């Protein structure tokens, strides 16, 4: 599968050699059962390995020419770096030239060159090669074996299919691959060795592990430092490597490693002369290339001594939060003068930044290195040319530095390097290698471009035999690269037309293809068999990943490759529940007409019978597409045609219905190098010149969004032929996608100290901008966290006490500023609505406080603002207080603050504490008190909840028995209620009047009407008798009362309800007798109804 190989190689060249070398070694031992292992073991890896091997083998046989160049190249260059310095220049010039040799010769060639360069090594290398040969053939056999017979085996299946269908593509791809590989080839070998070892170890299936090691080691022996390094890597330093290799396996695409290694390798050699440890003899060969002048220059770099790593014993566990130590701004920021150096002067050198630099921040340093063509790596290895060391470097790194004897410089040393090195790295070995690599790269690009051209022409010739986008659009136009009349967008024009042109996500694309390929088979088994990678159970696939990385392209391409006709639906179509259900019905059970008919002069493509449904932008289903997601998920469960769903964010809650329904394929951003190859090709075809570091800057700036990079260069093409580093940076900045920061990030950024460091370039506007990322949360988050910093401004206090005072002063100033901010906030959100004050609010509530307290946040976790939670619970409790006050109102005169501050503590003692202390004996008393204040059970709970400090609810422990008794007794009795709710809404204007009288329906309580009226009882009676309106309402009242009662029953507790009926009866019977005590009085203008449990009786009395 060419596609495979290409991005496989392109993606991570390191893997390629691994494959090749591993294969040979593995194969012989495997014969019996090894093979099985390979096939069965994890799908990710094994198949891949096999694939490539098989492919290569296959390809080699039929098409010797194409590869010849590359292979030879490959071997030649591969050998070079390690073994034979002398060969290097030769090959550098050579690659373009050699084209014919056949497979075997090539190999021989490779070996020969090896031999030539390093006679001493002959034995091991020959051994290797012989083995290699053997295995290669084996691989071939294997490949052939598998292809015909196992239909069910996923991996092979795919290959076969691909192989058959796209042999041509493969060829091309292969070529391209090799081209691309040329540059990384050198490092490959080394990494390869490691990779192989790793793999073997990881897989732990092989008896050959030892052999492998041996083989590696002899080679390494040759160059002693290597040996050292090898060992280092194997043992202490392995971690990062191991991680890397594992990752690589998993992702299949992690190119970074390779990237890093390539230069490192080279540079190491350049560096080695200066390496204190490196034995002169061994270094000699490598140094041969460095001119004396260069050596002088390099020797002139002021080295510093790295502190020895601390003893290893300390701290076992990982300390969280301790990582921010070095992220702060440099203490002497601003004192560093950026050196002015020759262009690309650091070419071929690799740098590692570690620790807190004194004069420049890490970002600036890294930018500087990149700008002059150097490579920046994250962790030191034996290949690192220089380590730029600051304070507090990690112990691990120091260890590695010591072990490898790496050259250590500070920022001055870096500046010196930049100043003295000649353009393009001068004539140092590293630079030479770099130049060579560059040349090769260019060569490759040219080839690729030619390939593309050819392809296009071919397409033009056949008049759109291929149905892909490119083909369709470019049909008929073809002729070469004159693109003048071409009106297509570059993103369309250069859209991948073959699998191998997809950048990155190889594994995922393969999985997709396999799934699609197996679909009919799975359909036959009714999706019961999961298959080797578990995709067999699914009728739908969900591809998700960030924009611009080729999800849609991959889906379309795979469909095309597998001979499916595509039905696409995207966000431009309405996809509501109904439409999904009805609209898809037509699609789900049909076949494409294209399988039976074709346009003029076109052949019928039998393969086109099959349909695949591509649902693009599934997460774009929005309010207009109500129910669409659910319906779509339902369709996914029973679809008879394969469905490919595409979305950006799989984690959204609304994507939940697709869980367990679709086979998820996460697409990741391709690495810079994966994209760069493609972009460079495009650039070449368009005749633009852009140095790799510029392309890198563009790619990094866009967040690996291929589409955007293509758009950018297409824009650039309009007015310029070339672009330099700064322009590139500028452009990617201008095109920067503005991501909205999350509140946590905002807080971390503003409080972290970086923005307020003297060296910081961020302006006030930048900081205000930060606030506007989330203007609601940022001030709150800042307020929550501003006390958790270690302010920079307090750092230079003479002693701890002064520092504390300073910190307090800063905190106080910050708090004052936040307080100011709140006043502004009031003007914005209050009645004035002065929204134009937002920037002022940003400054007062966000920027200014941060300016005081900004500093390292180590040891402090960024917390989410607690204001919101507290505010809402305050609201809740306030409602409770209002409720309590509303109930007590007939009894007390205080407002709600008085109730909370004076009554609640007293009531708490009499209600809650009493129950707690005295238990159930106190219950009657408590209920009595509650009734006298019209408090309900809910109010009792509220009073308990309102306690604070010593009365905190947490401290209240009431026996369950007492509580149960309380609840039971409370529910058993009826309780007075002060009022009823009216449900009538009063409109704001209009019919205001005359409604008042109707309010009488409010019927009210009084058990203790007596209590209130102890004294005035007689007066009252007298009053009532005088009141003319007592009698009047009787007639009228009937309906109202009934209503009131009904309402009451409904609204208030059920007990009332239950009791009412019997009472009514009783009331009627005993009506006359009961009129004595309290009478209900009502008048037209207002009502005083004392409601007690006899109320129903009274109604009936009054009715009579």
């Amino acid at each position, binding site marked *: 599968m060419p596609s495979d190989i290409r991005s496989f190689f392109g993606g991570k060249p390191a893997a390629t050699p691994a494959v090749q070398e591993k294969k040979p070694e593995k194969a012989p031992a495997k014969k019996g059962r090894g093979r099985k292992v390979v096939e069965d073991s994890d799908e990710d890896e094994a198949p891949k390995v096999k694939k490539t091997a098989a492919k290569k083998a296959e390809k080699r046989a039929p098409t010797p020419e194409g590869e010849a160049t590359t292979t030879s190249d490959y071997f030649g260059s591969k050998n070079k770096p390690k073994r034979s310095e002398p060969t290097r220049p030769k090959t550098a010039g050579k690659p373009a030239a050699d084209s014919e040799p056949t497979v075997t010769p090539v190999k021989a060639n490779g070996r020969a060159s090896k031999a030539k360069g390093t006679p001493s090594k002959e034995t091991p290398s020959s051994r290797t090669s012989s083995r290699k040969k053997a295995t290669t053939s084996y691989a071939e056999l294997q490949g052939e074996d598998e292809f015909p017979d196992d239909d069910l085996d996923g991996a092979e299946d795919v290959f076969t299919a691909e192989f058959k269908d796209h042999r041509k593509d493969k060829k091309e791809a292969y070529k391209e691959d090799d081209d691309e590989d040329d540059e990384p080839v050198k490092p490959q070998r080394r990494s390869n060795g490691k990779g192989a070892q790793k793999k073997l170890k990881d897989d732990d299936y092989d008896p050959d592990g030892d052999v492998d090691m041996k083989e590696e080691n002899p080679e390494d022996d040759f160059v002693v430092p290597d040996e050292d390094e090898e060992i280092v890597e194997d043992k202490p330093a392995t971690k990062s490597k191991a991680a890397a290799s594992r990752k690589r396996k998993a992702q299949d695409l992690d190119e970074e490693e390779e990237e890093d290694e390539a230069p490192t390798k080279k540079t190491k050699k350049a560096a080695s002369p200066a390496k204190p440890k490196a034995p002169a003899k061994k270094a000699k060969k490598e140094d041969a290339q460095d001119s004396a002048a260069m050596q002088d220059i390099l020797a002139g770099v002021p080295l510093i001594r790295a502190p020895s790593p601390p003893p290893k014993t300390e701290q076992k566990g990982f300390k969280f939060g301790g990582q921010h130590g070095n992220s702060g701004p440099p203490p002497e920021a601003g004192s560093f003068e950026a050196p002015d150096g020759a262009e690309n002067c650091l070419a071929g050198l690799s740098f590692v930044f570690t620790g807190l630099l004194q004069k420049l921040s890490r970002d600036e340093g890294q930018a500087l290195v990149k700008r002059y063509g150097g490579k920046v790596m994250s962790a030191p290895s034996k290949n690192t040319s220089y380590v730029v060391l600051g304070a507090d470097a990690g112990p691990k790194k120091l260890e590695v530095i010591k072990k490898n004897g790496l050259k250590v410089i500070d920022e001055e040393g870096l500046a010196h390097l930049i100043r003295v090195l000649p353009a393009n790295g001068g004539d140092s070995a590293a630079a030479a290698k770099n130049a060579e690599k560059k040349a090769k790269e260019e060569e490759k690009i040219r080839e690729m471009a030619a390939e593309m051209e050819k392809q296009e022409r071919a397409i033009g010739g056949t008049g759109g035999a291929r149905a892909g986008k490119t083909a369709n659009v470019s049909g008929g136009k073809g002729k070469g690269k004159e693109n003048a009349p071409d009106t297509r967008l570059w993103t369309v024009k250069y859209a991948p037309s073959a699998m191998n042109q997809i950048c990155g996500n190889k594994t995922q694309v393969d999985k997709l293809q396999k799934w699609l390929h197996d679909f009919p088979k799975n359909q036959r088994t009714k999706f019961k068999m999961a298959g080797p990678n578990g995709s067999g159970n699914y009728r739908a696939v969900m591809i998700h990943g960030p924009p611009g990385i080729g999800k849609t392209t991959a889906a379309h391409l795979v469909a095309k490759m597998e001979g499916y006709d595509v039905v696409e639906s995207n966000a431009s179509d309405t996809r509501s529940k109904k439409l999904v259900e009805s609209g898809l019905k037509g699609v789900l059970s049909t076949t494409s007409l294209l399988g039976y008919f074709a346009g003029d002069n076109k052949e019928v493509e039998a393969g086109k019978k099959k349909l695949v449904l591509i649902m693009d932008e599934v997460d774009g289903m929005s309010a207009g597409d109500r129910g669409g997601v659910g319906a779509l998920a339902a369709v996914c469960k029973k679809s008879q045609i394969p469905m490919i769903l595409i979305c950006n964010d799989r984690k959204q809650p609304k994507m939940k219905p697709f869980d367990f329904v679709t086979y998820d394929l996460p697409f990741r951003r391709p690495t810079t190098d994966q994209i760069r190859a493609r972009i460079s090709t495009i650039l070449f075809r368009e005749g633009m010149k852009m140095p790799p570091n510029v392309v890198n800057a563009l790619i990094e700036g866009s967040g690996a969004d291929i589409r955007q990079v293509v758009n950018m260069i297409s824009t650039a093409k309009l007015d310029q032929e070339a672009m330099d580093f700064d322009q590139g940076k500028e452009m990617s900045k201008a095109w920067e996608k503005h991501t909205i920061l999350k509140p946590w990030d905002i807080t971390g950024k503003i409080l972290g100290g970086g923005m307020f460091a003297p060296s910081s370039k961020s302006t006030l506007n930048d900081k205000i901008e930060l606030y506007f990322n989330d203007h609601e949360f940022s001030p709150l988050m800042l307020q929550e966290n501003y006390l958790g910093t270690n302010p920079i401004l307090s750092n230079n206090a003479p002693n701890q006490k002064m520092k504390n005072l300073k910190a307090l002063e800063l*905190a106080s100033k910050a708090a004052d500023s936040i307080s100011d901010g709140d006043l502004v906030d009031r003007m914005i959100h209050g009645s004035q609505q002065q929204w134009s004050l937002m920037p002022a609010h940003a400054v007062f509530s966000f920027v200014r406080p941060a300016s005081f307290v900004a500093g390292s946040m180590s040891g402090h976790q960024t917390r989410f603002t607690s204001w919101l939670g507290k505010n809402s619970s305050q609201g809740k409790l306030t409602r409770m207080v209002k409720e309590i006050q509303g109930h007590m109102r007939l009894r007390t005169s205080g*407002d709600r603050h008085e109730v*909370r501050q004076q009554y609640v503590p007293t009531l708490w*003692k009499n209600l809650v504490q009493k129950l707690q202390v005295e238990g159930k004996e106190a219950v009657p008393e408590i209920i009595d008190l509650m009734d006298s204040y019209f408090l309900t059970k809910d109010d009792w709970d509220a009073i308990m909840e309102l306690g604070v400090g010593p009365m905190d609810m947490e401290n209240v422990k009431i026996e369950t028995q007492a509580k149960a008794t309380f609840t039971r007794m409370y529910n058993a009795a009826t309780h007075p209620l002060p*009022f009823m709710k009216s449900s*009538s809404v009063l409109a704001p204007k209009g019919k205001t009047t005359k409604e008042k009288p109707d309010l009488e329906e409010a019927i009210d309580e009084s058990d203790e009407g007596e209590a209130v009226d102890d004294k005035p009882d007689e007066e009252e009676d007298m009053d009532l008798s005088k009141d003319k309106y007592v009698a009047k309402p009787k007639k009228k009242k009937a309906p109202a009362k009934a209503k009131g009662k009904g309402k009451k029953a409904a609204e208030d507790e059920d007990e009332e309800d239950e009791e009412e009926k019997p009472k009514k009866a009783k009331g009627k019977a005993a009506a006359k007798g009961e009129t004595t005590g309290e009478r209900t009085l009502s008048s037209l203008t207002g009502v005083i109804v004392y409601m007690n449990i006899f109320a129903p009786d009274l109604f009936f009395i009054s009715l009579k």
Partner: protein
Amino acid sequence: MALLVDKHRPRSLEALSYHHTLSDRLRSLAQSGDFPHLLIYGPSGAGKKTRITATLRALYGPGVEKIKIDSRVFQTTSNRKLEFNIVSSNYHLEITPSDVGNYDRVVVQDLLKEVAQTQQVDLAAKQRFKVVVINEADHLTRDAQAALRRTMEKYSPNLRLILLANSTSNIIAPIRSRTLLVRVAAPTEEEICDVLKKVGKKEGYKENAELEKRIAKESGRNLRRALLMFEAVHAQNEQVNEKTPIPPPDWEALIAQIADDIIAEHTPARILQVRAKLYDLLTHCIPATTILKTLTFKLMPKIDDALKSEVVKWSAFYEHRIRMGSKVIFHLEAFVAKFMRVSEAHLMGMDFDDDF
């Protein structure tokens, strides 16, 4: 069995035990037949509401004590529904417009007009007008107060207003000019002692003049509070003497704790701890200004004299901000930070040079 404070509440003007001249004036106003709009103001626990109730009784007779609570729903112009409780008798209405926050204007406009446009139907009523008592008048928004002023003049034949407030400072001048201002001062400690003695006698408590005096002092001349404390002390102790501790309310205890925290350590980390406690108080409905005031008074005895004026100054400064702003915790925290800063500088013998 209600609490003492409500059980022994005087019901008529004659029964009131202090501010006799004021009671007399109110009685004569009630009898004059030309009852003006009133603005009654004074600290809480001084007896404003009790006086009003007694005055109403003098105006209308005992019928005014037959009160009930209505719940009405109002609709704002933005169609938001507000539920609003009205305490009313035949003759008067009692409302607390600040219950509905910023929508108090709607309530004032609608409800008052409705009442004002309805004539007293009860021919036997002693007065032709109805009385509307507005609680927490000083918490009325400007809009609501503006809505009041015209109503007061236009509907005066049918309507009299009694505004209750803690202070007149928040009440706009036009309203102050339309009302008769009546100040109800807090009772003196002796007056409180008298009341306590009287109540104690009714309840059959053993008299203890010393304790009563202490309670009167502790209560801050708030009679309601004094009575509640009086009851709490007696409820918790069978035998009381001069030494019997008076349990402070929960929130005061917590504020005292905060004051101790602040004094004990001056670091940003401590501010964070204090913030948690302040939040606790705020969520439990203790107003920020009360917190600030209480905290300041709790801090006072613990700090050096030289600092006192400074601390009081800042306390006042931030109290003002609490009223001006919306997120009160910010200002409380700023006060705590400022206090720590000032007192730490003082401890270290450094001048507090101010910024601002």
